[in-house]
């Protein structure tokens, strides 16, 4: 780095217009204020103000654009920005983790692309070029990758997009099938909430349920038959399916996972085409999610937990949204030689897991039922739920399994939404055994394996091992962590 890198390149001029369009909605929010302010002036005055305002914003955007420059040097990329106070950021090639190209619908219309340079710091946008022409984006990425490969001492290859072996890809039928599994009434609820937000624009009020039903009663005149109810339910179901399919299609259309020297590259998306590279050494563990329905067909979703938690998905990246086990094997193998467990080696947790679940999950319902029974004797019928809870506890215990094979810990949990964690033991940071009072009574322990980038809601913990097994397993894991790092 003998001479300073010159930052002499600008973003694509069209990005001024793009930014302008993107900021338009928030700018428009200022209009009502303007209207009130100019209440007594004439309407022509208002339009003049709006024009002046619009031109001023455009001018500011142009100045910001003209003061944003970047350049690629021998060992770094330099980004200079700022109108009044100048900021010069230099990112050395060896610090660069990923270079992503992202294209939203507007970008694709204009032939532009957003380039994101990630350095593995905790923050989000360490290097964001919004936006370049697609050709320049490709050139820049190739240059950065080549520079990084050179500086990090890895075998350097220019852009190997064409030759990268594809590990997994989804054709349209598979994406549609995946959409069917993503059926959810949750989005319907979302649509309803949205309607509620904008209800002042609707010709009817949502709260007026009584009125609605009144209407319905008038019209139907007592024809509120099981058939109509079934039709309404069917319609809701259909809407749920359609929203699920549409969402999945938008996200996973053209899903493609390829192996590159830099890591695993994933492209997906119908409207917004996103591309990310997951560096192999940042993969902490693999997670396979198999809902009860997917399991029936032998399908599942494969995700990798990565070190960066700043992305959507809480540090978890889907690398195969819907795949058969045989299709997951090459992906797992490519990612640090992970493997699927032999079903036979997965052991169940202690039988007392069921007892604990009953003790901790049925007590509250029982109390509620008892309290309700004082008022309404019929509430005693609620006791019929208790066998269901017990059954659920038994089923959950059957699904909760674990195994330690060589240097990998497998943990499976959940019956309805089953998860299987594949944890290379090298990725464990601490091991913790927990014993609550109930667990002590039953001779149980929970083993917690802490990994980087995990969310506290879903981590590979093994709940309710018998205390001896837990201690033995923790010791075995600790023993493996003692070995010097390879």
């Amino acid at each position: 780095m003998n001479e300073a890198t010159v930052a002499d390149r600008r973003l694509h001029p069209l990005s001024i217009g793009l930014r302008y369009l993107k900021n338009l909605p928030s700018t428009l929010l200022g209009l009502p204020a303007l209207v009130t302010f100019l209440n007594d002036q004439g309407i022509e005055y208002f339009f003049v103000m709006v024009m002046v305002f619009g031109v001023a914003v455009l001018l500011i955007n142009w100045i910001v654009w003209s003061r944003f420059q970047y350049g690629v040097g021998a060992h770094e990329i330099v980004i200079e920005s700022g109108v009044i106070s100048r900021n010069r950021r230099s990112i050395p090639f060896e610090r660069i983790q990923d270079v992503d190209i992202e294209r939203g619908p507007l970008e694709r219309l204009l032939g532009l692309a957003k380039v994101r340079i990630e350095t593995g710091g905790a923050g989000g946008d360490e290097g964001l070029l919004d936006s370049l022409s697609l050709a320049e984006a490709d050139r820049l990425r190739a240059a950065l990758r080549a520079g990084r490969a050179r500086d990090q001492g890895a075998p350097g290859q220019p852009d190997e997009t064409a030759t990268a072996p594809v590990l997994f890809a989804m054709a349209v039928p598979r994406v549609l099938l995946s959409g069917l599994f993503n059926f959810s009434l949750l989005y319907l609820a979302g649509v309803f909430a949205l309607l509620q937000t904008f209800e002042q624009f609707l010709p009817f009020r949502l709260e007026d349920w009584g009125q609605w039903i009144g209407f319905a009663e008038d019209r139907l005149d007592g024809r509120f038959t099981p058939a109509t109810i079934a039709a309404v339910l069917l319609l809701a179901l259909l809407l749920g399916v359609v929203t699920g399919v549409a969402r999945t299609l938008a996200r996973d259309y053209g899903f493609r996972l390829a192996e590159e020297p830099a890591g695993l590259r994933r492209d997906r998306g119908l409207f917004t085409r996103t591309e990310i590279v997951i560096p192999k050494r940042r993969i902490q563990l693999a997670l396979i999610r198999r809902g009860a329905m997917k399991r029936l067909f032998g399908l599942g979703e494969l995700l990798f937990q990565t070190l960066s938690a700043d992305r959507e998905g809480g540090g978890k990246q889907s690398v195969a949204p819907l795949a058969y086990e045989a299709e997951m094997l090459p992906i797992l193998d490519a990612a640090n030689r992970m493997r699927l467990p032999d079903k036979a080696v997965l052991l169940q947790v202690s039988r007392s897991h069921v007892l604990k679940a009953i003790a901790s999950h049925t007590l509250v319902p029982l109390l509620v039922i008892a309290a309700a029974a004082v008022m309404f004797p019929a509430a005693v019928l609620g006791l019929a739920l208790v066998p269901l809870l017990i059954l659920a506890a038994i089923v959950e215990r059957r699904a909760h399994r674990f195994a330690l094979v060589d240097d990998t810990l497998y943990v499976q949990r959940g019956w309805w939404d089953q998860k299987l964690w594949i944890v290379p033991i090298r990725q464990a940071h601490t091991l913790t055994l927990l014993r609550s009072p109930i667990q002590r009574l039953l001779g149980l322990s929970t083993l917690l394996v802490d990994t980087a980038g995990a969310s506290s809601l879903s981590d590979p913990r093994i709940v309710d091992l018998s205390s001896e097994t837990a201690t033995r397993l923790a010791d075995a894991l600790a023993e493996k962590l003692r070995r010097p790092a390879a």
Partner: protein
Amino acid sequence: MTGLEPGQLWVMRIHAAIVGAVVLTVAAGANAVLAVALPVPMGAIVAPVALLLVYPVLFGPTRRFAAWRYGADDQELRIRHGVVIQVQTVVPFGRVQHIDVSQGPIERAFGVARLVLHTAGTANSQVVLPGLSRATAETLRDEIRVHIRQDLM
């Protein structure tokens, strides 16, 4: 496995007493506010709160102190603590990112220090071992630091 320095017991007692005093003050305040509106005696809230505080303030610290155990060999630190929920943690030295030895004013008065191990994990990214003598804490820290350096090379 060794226990903590006796000074830590006093640190824990004082911490519990401070928390107890704060809770009691809040209760007294609430009681006074309530007394304005309703004909309630001063003890209506304070007395039950004080009763509830007897165990955690007077006896809790002793039990919690006694529950702490730690042991270190040349590769890992093992800690166990907790009265209601018992926790046993293993921290391999090779996983430690950085180490702090810290001392609050009360801890300084009783000659104890806290060793804080930071790992790259999520749930347990900080493992705290309180109640060490300053010398022990520093010895442990230096020992672990050697491992961090080795791991980097």
